[in-house]
């Protein structure tokens, strides 16, 4: 990694980078390398058979489709929630603010059990949805609900500090220049929030892709319909087929990596073009 750091005076690049790489390698890369290594116990043909089976493909479609959908829902409502929590006063705000972390603190199994109970035909929510013909629990829709739940804090919590940090001067300047409130939001505030929003989206997405604990309780787990890839991994482990399980995990990992890289690349391009625009 060639560095343009010499251009400016800030210290700590080498130390920070060295530590980052070391820690990343120890905690993340080494274990993942062990996983990839384990999957090489399979021949290429075996690996391909596992990765391209109908069930595996269907489960990948469901896993990534539901995760994308959930991350999008979280992006929309996350912006709304973060904005309201930072900018508008209302009674009980602190409590509501604290509530946002719930999906992380609650063990995923409890979340899954609770959501399944709420959205089942006789649950607090399900009993009103079912007469409308909307079935959530034990359908792919249930997967989206569970993934929305577990990813919710990401967007809100990445946006909050950024919104708190937006300079009032920015908005004042826009207003002085005759912008309407909506224009100010669309042209000034939203662009300032965009990098954090993308971060939150990415995190919610990646968390959703790997999620297992909450989903299996609400998904119904029907093969080809509501079976997620992590469930297939577990069912391989139940057969003591560790190599097969790691093969599926590697497939997921590669797709996730490409997906995340695309979003992160987009985000950096965006940030750079804005910075260039700001300099000009």
């Amino acid at each position, binding site marked *: 990694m060639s560095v343009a750091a010499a251009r400016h005076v*800030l210290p700590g690049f080498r130390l920070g980078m060295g530590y980052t790489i070391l820690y990343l390698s120890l905690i993340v890369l080494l274990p993942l390398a062990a996983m990839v290594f384990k999957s090489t116990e399979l021949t290429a043909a075996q690996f391909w058979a596992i990765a391209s089976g109908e069930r595996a493909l269907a489960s990948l479609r469901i896993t990534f489709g539901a995760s994308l959908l959930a991350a999008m829902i979280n992006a929309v409502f996350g912006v709304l929630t973060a904005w309201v929590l930072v900018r508008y006063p*209302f009674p009980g705000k602190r409590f509501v603010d604290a509530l946002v972390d719930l999906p992380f603190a609650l063990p995923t199994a409890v979340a899954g059990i609770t959501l399944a109970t709420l959205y089942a035909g006789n649950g607090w929510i399900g009993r009103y949805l079912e007469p409308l013909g909307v079935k959530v629990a034990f359908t792919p829709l249930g997967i989206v609900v569970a993934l929305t739940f577990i990813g919710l804090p990401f967007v809100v919590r990445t946006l909050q500090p950024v919104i708190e940090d937006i300079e009032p001067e920015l908005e004042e300047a826009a207003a002085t220049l005759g912008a309407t409130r909506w224009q100010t939001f669309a042209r000034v505030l939203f662009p300032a929030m965009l990098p954090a929003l993308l971060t939150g989206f990415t995190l919610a997405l990646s968390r959703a892709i790997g999620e297992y604990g909450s989903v299996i309780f609400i998904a119904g787990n029907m093969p080809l319909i509501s079976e997620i890839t992590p469930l297939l991994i577990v069912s391989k482990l139940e057969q003591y087929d560790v190599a097969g399980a790691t093969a599926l995990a590697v497939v997921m990992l590669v797709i996730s990596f490409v997906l995340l890289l695309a979003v992160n690349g987009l985000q950096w391009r965006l940030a750079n073009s804005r910075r260039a625009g700001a300099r000009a």
Partner: protein
Amino acid sequence: MKPRHSALAEPPIVRIALTTLALLFLAFFLGLPLLSVFAEAFAAGVPAYLRALADPEARSAVILTVIVALGVLPLNIVFGVAAAWVIAKFEFRGKAALITLIDLPFAVSPVVAGLVFVLIFGAQGLFGPWLMAHDIKIIFALPGIVLATLFVTFPFIARELIPLMQAQGREEEEAAISLGASGWQMLWRVTLPNIKWGLLYGVILANARAMGEFGAVSVVSGHIRGETNTLPLHVEILYNEYNQVGAFAAASVLAMLALVTLLAKTAVEWRMRRETAMLSAELSPERVPAPASGRTAGATHPSAERP
């Protein structure tokens, strides 16, 4: 708060509509599940709830969970600050790739996250035989649980800080350095105070996840009662044993972590307000305290985003 110009704030009707919409969303997605957890926990009355919590196994699970979180958080704080510093304040090639690598642990299914450590340290793993020969226990003991938790909470703090530090730009730090501050002075006096909200959120999130993690930990824990069972594992076992009240009582303890968030935020806010008041009393008059606004105290950020 200062009264705002109409172009500086939304019309009341929009505010009310947005607030209502946000609250409705949160009520459905967070409020009802929370309520439901407590309803189950208290289904058999308060004494049954308290009995479930007084159970020695529940207590040892709570203690273990706290120890694990305490082991994990400092390590991830240091990493988070270091990584965010490098990524947000410097330009280098491969940045997007580095960030993606940091994100990766989230995308790895928790089931697999536990498994990878078994592949390394397990009896049939890479280092397993050596560890066994030297009687060093990593998995099915505290170190394994800490490692798995480190893995699943790895990105939180870094990811929380990167967009924030990026938005803040590097002018303040550069100013500090050019005024002769050492690197550590800059870190303690400029950088950390500026990012403390983001850091706090990151720590809170990482802590919540560290305490609530089930999947990865369940693979490396060994489930020894009263010894390597964390609270989420304890919850699952109780549930499977048809002890619904016990399970949800334990889960409610984790849910109440949200209250810890509340306390931490309030405490920091309070400290900050006091210090801002002190500072503004003895320092320049332009640093006006902005109490309760939740904004980073008195710090102005000539950020990169100028309109």
